[in-house]
């Protein structure tokens, strides 16, 4: 049954992605597209990524006990999040009949989200697009379909390093860091969703489909804010890692009794100094040496130093809320449990239940909703996991037509 709500209701997408592209499938499915996700016999390998729901954990912590008690497969919360609103179909793409079913599904889809699965199954995207001329086929790969690095392996950490992200994250006394989570995958997934929607528009307007390649490598490199700007516009400058200190020098995380806060002098230096002056904490900031415009490079680090001493006399959380009342864009450094308890998100009723099984589960874990609200066609909250439709697996011999009947696709 196709989803009925969301701006993409009625759009058919075949999701063949691995972790590099799966976020695109989530974005489109949550916006109402009918997204069928193909899994190999034995299940989607991404169902085996943690974190897992720890059920029936006894005093001894018993994951093994839980398995013995019949919960053979732990339920992946990673999968529940990234594979939300998908309809799973099991196909053995290594078999001749399975390949035929896979091809059949492609030809009934508006768009295919691939990560090399079609090529591995011996199917050619170009052939599919010529068989269905308005098909949009997006392939997310680590480095693109050709070139000297085509076959390099790049999990999230390596993609962060080669893509230019890690070099700028970390501190002078630490190694370069990747971001927490799946940042390079999220970035590529967002671009892949854009590729599908842009490709669909062209197909609707001109009846012409196409292949669109999304290399993770370039996707990551396009989201580096100052890195390329420094290199191109500041004579090849490379900024070393400097902890929480922003490249402009004007934002930094500082300790405050009760925690940490990100303090800044943007957008208005004058306005941001008012509070400091009210408190009589401005020290020598108004000395002659700092007043010349050419001495801004001296003034900013001195302000941050004075700020550091000043904020140490404050207390969280009141300091954060008082700052925001003054329209200072300070940021209280929150931990995940504090984020989960955020009153603004609670008031917006933003969290969504992610059922991790096929029953409507009142105990379902809470996770992020969509970061945008549509006035007329709201998003589709994650529903209970759909029953897996089984295609041809291990020679079980179902026809393409039978599978289409079951999932409601078909000519």
């Amino acid at each position: 049954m196709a989803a009925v709500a969301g701006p993409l209701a009625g759009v058919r997408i075949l999701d063949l992605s691995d972790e590099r592209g799966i976020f695109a499938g989530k974005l489109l499915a949550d916006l109402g597209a009918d997204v069928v996700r193909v899994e190999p016999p034995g299940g989607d390998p991404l169902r085996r990524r943690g974190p897992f729901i720890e059920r029936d954990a006894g005093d001894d912590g018993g994951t093994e006990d839980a398995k013995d008690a019949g919960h053979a497969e732990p339920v992946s919360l990673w999968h529940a999040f990234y594979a939300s609103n998908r309809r799973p179909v099991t196909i053995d793409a290594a078999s001749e009949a399975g390949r035929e079913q896979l091809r059949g599904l492609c030809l009934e889809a508006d768009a295919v989200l691939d990560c090399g699965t079609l090529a591995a199954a011996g199917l050619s995207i170009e052939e599919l697009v010529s068989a269905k001329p308005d098909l949009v086929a997006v392939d997310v790969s680590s480095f693109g379909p050709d070139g000297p690095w085509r076959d390099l392996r790049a999990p999230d950490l390596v993609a962060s390093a080669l893509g230019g992200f890690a070099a700028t994250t970390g501190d002078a006394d630490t190694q370069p860091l990747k971001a927490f989570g799946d940042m390079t995958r999220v970035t590529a997934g967002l671009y892949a969703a854009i590729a599908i929607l842009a490709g669909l528009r062209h197909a609707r307007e001109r009846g012409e489909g196409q292949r669109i390649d999304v290399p993770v490598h370039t996707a990551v490199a396009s989201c580096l804010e100052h890195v390329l700007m420094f290199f191109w516009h500041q004579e090849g400058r490379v900024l070393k890692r400097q902890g929480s200190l922003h490249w402009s020098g004007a934002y930094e995380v500082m300790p405050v009794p009760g925690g940490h806060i990100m303090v800044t002098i943007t957008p208005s230096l004058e306005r941001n100094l008012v509070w400091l002056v009210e408190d009589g904490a401005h020290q020598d900031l108004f000395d002659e040496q700092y007043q010349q415009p050419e001495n801004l490079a001296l003034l900013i680090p001195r302000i941050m130093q004075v700020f550091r001493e000043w904020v140490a006399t404050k207390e969280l959380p009141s300091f954060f809320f008082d700052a925001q009342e003054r329209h200072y864009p300070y940021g209280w450094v929150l931990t995940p449990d504090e984020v989960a308890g955020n009153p603004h998100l609670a008031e917006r009723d933003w969290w969504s239940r992610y059922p991790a099984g096929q029953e409507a589960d009142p105990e379902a874990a809470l996770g992020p909703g969509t970061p945008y609200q549509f006035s007329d066609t709201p998003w589709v909250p994650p529903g209970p996991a759909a029953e897996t439709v089984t295609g041809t697996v291990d020679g079980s011999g179902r026809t393409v037509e039978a599978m289409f009947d079951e999932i409601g696709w078909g000519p």
Partner: protein
Amino acid sequence: MSEAGALPLDGIRVLDFTHVLAGPFATRIMGDLGADVVKVTSMARPGNVPGNAYYTMWNRNKRSLALDMSDELARETCRALCERADVVIENFAVGVLDRWGVGYDVVREANPGVVYVAMSGMGSEGPWSHFVTYAPTIHALAGLTYLTGVPDHDPIGIGVSHNDHIAGLHATVATLAALEGRRRTGRGQRIDLSQFEVGVSLAGPALLDYSANERIARPGGNTLPYDVAAPHDCYPCAGDDRWVAIAVMNDAQWRALRSVMGEPSWASDARYDEASGRVADRATLDARVSEWTSRHETEAVQSLCQAAGVPAGVVQTGADMVERDPQFAHLGFFTTTDSGADEPPVPVDALPLRFSATPVTQYRAPRALGADNAAVLDEWIGMDEADVRAGEQSGAYR
């Protein structure tokens, strides 16, 4: 292939009120994809303007229209432009466009097909909706500053304004989805994006883990919180502050790395045969791997490891990316703007999407403020050039 130069968003008109990064990044992508993006700015507003490097980075493939929104004629013209727009997009604080007389209700009344995108920090409703945020603010509030770091260290966080990019990408997805929905319903709608929620979404599985298991994710350097994988870190190489990332994801890759390192005796320790043993002794293992990497150049470690099937990559700086990365060169990722007779080409990073039928190859440099007043006002609302010039004289279109 399509007729030369056809692009996926040909014919889509975007009226762009965004500034700084999150919004301009979204409209940069729309412009790359062929939309007619008209960026509305004013000489009366200080800040990011053409000529500034930051502005140059995010405002290619857009036309520039100057409107001084404190002027009644400018506001009237703005309303007329909104009536012709497919997309109106802004990332001001909540309420600014309402004060200018082009709030959603006004625009929709005259233009029911409009997709009207607001990209505020916190979303338009809720107790924190008036909070002022930049990307570092969002990173802090969303848990990203806490989570990206190393144990027993002051918070570090992400070294670029990453959430601005991610918010821009989300805004583009949402805009294109609403345009697709309009094809079916005939109506546009309002999209209320929250940059805070964009940031919180990045930790999705960790937040589900907290909800289901009350387990709180912590900063762990380059370790993976939910996988058993080691060695998995950035390691120092020969040279000044040169690093390589090595990510051994399974036991076969460990055996391959051992071989690449020349089967050192420490690595043959049976405890290291399985991932759990390597993770348990991570500190020693990382120190040993560092001793090996320190003797080699970054590129050598990458190519030796990759040839053996071990994921590894140079921690590339901007200089590495532009001057040495052969894959970016192969993909043509770094190119330049199309230069006019009197303007030098500006370096750009290409749209990272490769379309077979509608390739994106044109990157027009950012335009001087108001440089497209006459063309835009003529094409969008049929204004005579004389009226445009009169408005410029009076200060409305400046």
